[in-house]
């Protein structure tokens, strides 16, 4: 882990002149090294507050030219260490799950008193566990009551539902969850779904009292 600070002079100026602190790949930078960076352009005030001692604070006077710093940070895990799709999902885990939880809470305020359950349908089981954990935390932070309980279905239901298309399978499963009592009238199930293994976004579905609705 390291911090790579491009410049505390106007970034484009220095990069153009010397090309030494430019994080872009070039004669002195390998492409792989650059690919592992996430860069952000900061003004001097923000930069000096976030990286004291590394970035100079703006001058109190005489600063006619606003100076910027491009701060690049290395990703924690190198490319290739894990599956690219998993990496894409996990890299955006917090914003994705937070958005899903906020959408659920804002679109269905009447479910504020319900107990929320989370089920995740993602190919990699480790990733599914992570997504579930993050979603539950996000729901909790939205002020909802969340349970670790897992809804279940009978084998007979599964025999039928596994032969259906996704558009029908999830609503049917929702009906059966409610009918079998696995989901109670006060339960709301948030399903986080990867419909295609090549997708790097997750879809959300809500099952309440036997009724299914896609959130995104």
């Amino acid at each position: 882990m390291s911090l790579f600070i491009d410049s505390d002079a106007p970034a484009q100026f220095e990069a153009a002149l010397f090309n030494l602190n430019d994080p872009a790949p070039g004669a002195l930078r390998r492409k792989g090294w650059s690919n592992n960076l996430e860069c952000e352009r900061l003004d001097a005030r923000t930069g000096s507050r976030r990286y004291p001692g590394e970035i100079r604070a703006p001058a109190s006077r005489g600063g006619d030219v606003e100076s910027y710093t491009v701060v690049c940070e290395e990703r924690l895990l190198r490319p290739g260490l894990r599956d690219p799709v998993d990496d894409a999902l996990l890299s955006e885990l917090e914003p994705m799950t937070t958005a899903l939880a906020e959408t659920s809470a804002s679109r269905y305020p009447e479910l504020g008193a319900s107990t929320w359950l989370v089920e995740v349908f993602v190919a990699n089981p480790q990733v599914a566990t992570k997504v579930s954990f993050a979603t539950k935390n996000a729901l909790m932070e939205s002020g909802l009551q969340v349970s670790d309980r897992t809804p279940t279905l009978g084998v007979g239901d599964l025999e039928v539902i596994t032969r259906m298309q996704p558009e029908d399978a999830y609503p049917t499963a929702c009906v059966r969850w409610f009918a079998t009592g696995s989901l109670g009238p006060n339960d709301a199930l948030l399903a986080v779904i990867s419909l295609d293994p090549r997708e790097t976004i997750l879809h959300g579905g809500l099952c309440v009292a036997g009724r299914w609705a896609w959130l995104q």
Partner: protein
Amino acid sequence: MTSSGHYARLRLAARYSRPHSASVLARPALDPGTAGALERAPAGANAGAAPLHLFGLLLATGGWFGINEAHAADPLRDVQLAEVDALRGKVADQVHLAAFDLIDELVYGWTNEPLFESPTPVVLAGVTVPVGLGTGLEAQLEDHLVSVLTQNPTTNVQLVHCPACTAVVVHSGPEATLISRGIDDPAVLAELGAATGKNALFIDIEAEGTWLVLRARVTRLTPDLPIVWSHTIATSSSVPSLLREPDALKSAAEARQEYLDALRGRGRVFIPARLAIRSYKGPGDGGGVPPPPFLWLESGVELSPTDSRAWTSSLLVGYTFIPQAYQGLLGHVRIDRLVTGRTRSLTHPDLYAFFGGSVITVWGPATASFQDEILNADQLLAAAAGDGPRTSFGALQVGVDLRVGNRIGISSFLETIPDLANSQNLGDYVRVFGVGFQSLGTEVTFWF
């Protein structure tokens, strides 16, 4: 695919059960040791209500969702696998301190706002690490968490061992026979007594881009498994680990303030004390006699315009005295520039380059060589008999200074003496652009 085919996969996947079994079923052969509830189908499966996780099974059918397992079939060679393992170990080494930080922060939060009003038994149900890293890191983090919690009893979290929670148990009911971790089976939880702990703590740490994120939740071990507390904290890859003492936890804000204090605490004014030795180059064959080495004790003041101490300037006065040989006074100014970074380091040596000037006055029998002409015997005898000549001259110097923590440093410099550039008693150690440097010096400096 028939149901028996599904169950074959399920058996592979379900060594331990976790609530999110669906994905386990999607790639059972790849990761048999991870999460996934196993439910064994009762006899007459069609009529039974065995609680299989629906969409895990759907995903297991693969083609229905268009799921392929191409990455499972990647024919990585042994060498590649070894390289990946080595890389995992390296990354884990880099990540674990940041993960320790997050755990410290979590426990510190509990010391300020305890989870429970009184000491409460809690089962450590699971610690998971970033996907791609190994279980060795899990063990490290678990040990650290236990260590920190043990040393901070005010959190009111009493970790307890719950074999029934973490072991794989078989539970037969009227609806089905379930094989799962006890903590995932509501029926088992319902039978748990108070002595085994009523809450379960789950910790998950994940690398999300440049962020390391810790999520924690506490679940009450009742059949409904309500989550009673959750928390998410994160640290960036560019943030150095705080390395807090387990028995003296402090918040990140406090640690940051300490860091800033360390940067700023010593102010911009230093009092250096310096021991310097100046040696003078002889003129070579046929020349005069060079002056002896001079030992100087110097002190004064060093100033820096910024806390980063990238630039410093100093004004020092010095004195030298060797009985029967010489005495001298020195005034010295110097400007230093940090060349290894933009700010002085708290952990690594700093290298400065400097430029300065001196005014030196010396007297005594051994100072007769500070003149242009070659000394003759009469001059040497006269100098030895009396106080000797008194000579004053100016000098310019360049050099480098290696400092550790801005507390101690060693430096080396070359000095040119314009007044004595043509002296037949002095030679040049080196000439640069026509400028001869007659003196070579080293110094040891302490800053107070």
